[in-house]
């Protein structure tokens, strides 16, 4: 068994979490103060994932803020960025509109700003 120390990134509190692991199987999670923290720790030791936030150009030349609507594997972040940077969003766009469908597994890139 090994123990991994993590800092939770779910919220600004930044709990220090310890995870006991046996061959990629999580045995115990300590130090978290909420359920989000437990889930973060369980994923982090097996397949760390992140929400990617960036911008996409709009058809009228502005920058539209976007994010992945689910966390994507850390190893895929730059592949996702490449797709984001080659995309164009057709205005008008509202918050929540899907800009790129299934950018990575079942995660979509969605608008986080409005562009009339």
């Amino acid at each position, binding site marked *: 068994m090994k123990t991994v120390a993590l800092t939770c990134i779910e*919220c600004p509190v930044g709990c220090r979490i310890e995870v006991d692991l046996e061959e990629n199987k999580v045995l115990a999670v300590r130090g978290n103060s909420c359920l989000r923290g437990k889930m973060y720790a369980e994923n982090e030791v097996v397949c760390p994932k992140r929400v990617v936030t960036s*911008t996409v150009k709009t058809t009228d030349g502005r*920058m539209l803020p976007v994010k992945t609507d689910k966390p994507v594997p*850390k190893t895929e972040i730059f592949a996702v960025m490449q797709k984001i940077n080659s995309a164009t969003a057709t205005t008008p766009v509202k918050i929540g509109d899907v800009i790129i469908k299934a950018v990575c597994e079942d995660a979509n890139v969605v608008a*986080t700003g409005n562009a009339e």
Partner: protein
Amino acid sequence: MMERDLVIIGGGPAGLAAAVSAYDNGAKDVVIIERDERLGGILNQCIHNGFGLTRFKESLSGPEYAARFIELVRQREITVMLKTTVLDLSADKTVTAINEENGVFTLKAKAIILAMGCRERSRGALNIAGTRPAGIYSAGTAQKYVNIKGYMPGKRVVILGSGDIGLIMARRMTLEGAKVLAVCEIMPYSSGLKRNIVQCLDDFGIPLYLNHTITKIEGEKRVTGVVVSKVDENKKPIAGTEMHFDCDTVLFSVGLIPENELTKNAGIKLSPRTRGACVYQNRETQIEGVFACGNVLQVHDLVDFVSEEAELAGASAAAYLNGKRRTDNAVIVENGKNVGYALPQMIDRSVNENVKLFFRVTGTFKDCTIIARSDDKILAKRKKKIAVPGEMETMLLTAEAVAEAGEKIEVYLETCGEN
């Protein structure tokens, strides 16, 4: 001269929440003056997520957080003046402003809420030796270039200061293809959130050099490199520790300064500790009917807390318009040992509700007690496992405790064994 009930200066998170709260508490003639072409303030360029966890229990990006409050403003009959800059504020609540449509004009307000936010400390404030080439930006300026304007300020980057904006920009520049060589922090700890160290630096293998600073910037027309040195406990560079980085860009993330020029013009007393106005518990300044909230008053860690403070100021302004006045009988709040500042600086004794004190400690303390005391009376006391300057502390004073207080309340921190 146009007369209005409530003029709010600034349409960022503080101004928006203050406007909604004032309106909902009975102020029906509310104007927001914003110098940018849209509402939302700095949130518009903060495209990363993590906003709103306290308030909305979900992780929003800056524009999403702003949009929720902009929508609330739109649902009410609140006047919004965009691309309008306030030039002057006088003690009699006359606002002088300018925009393309009206030129210079004045508004006479019955009440004012100051919500101008902060600006960044610049290179000039730091006295770094070297030339003055292109390629040196504050982190927030670089953020605006990348996220709003859509262009990259450079390819090889060194960042001075490990505040949250610097950390966020280290990740953002990396995602857009730049190489971030180093983040240097003169202090022995980062002032940024731990989660940002993990997800902005560690995730991308960007080194953080604590106890280090930039001692020289090189390059004639464009930055060509920087010299980074280790500092001793007095923050003096140690000879022989110099490291050289070839880079074309330097970002500064070295602190925020509340933008209080208008406050000064009006003759409102500022606190040398917060650099914001001295306020009563309802966020009223020394000029009756002028309120302040958000980062122009004290630099907050989270926008969620800015909104909360702004709602208090908005409700107070509405109460003022409705005829409520403070008494002359106030308790002074002061920061004592190991505490850098405490806010509000004054509490009206006639207050019949609990008062939340806000303050920051001056160092990292483990197993400590924070105490609010008046003369020999302990008014409130709380044990803390750890207290750090990067996290704003709060403490609740009950209305009874305020009533019991003498002339002054002192907020201080005792370390273990000193109690």
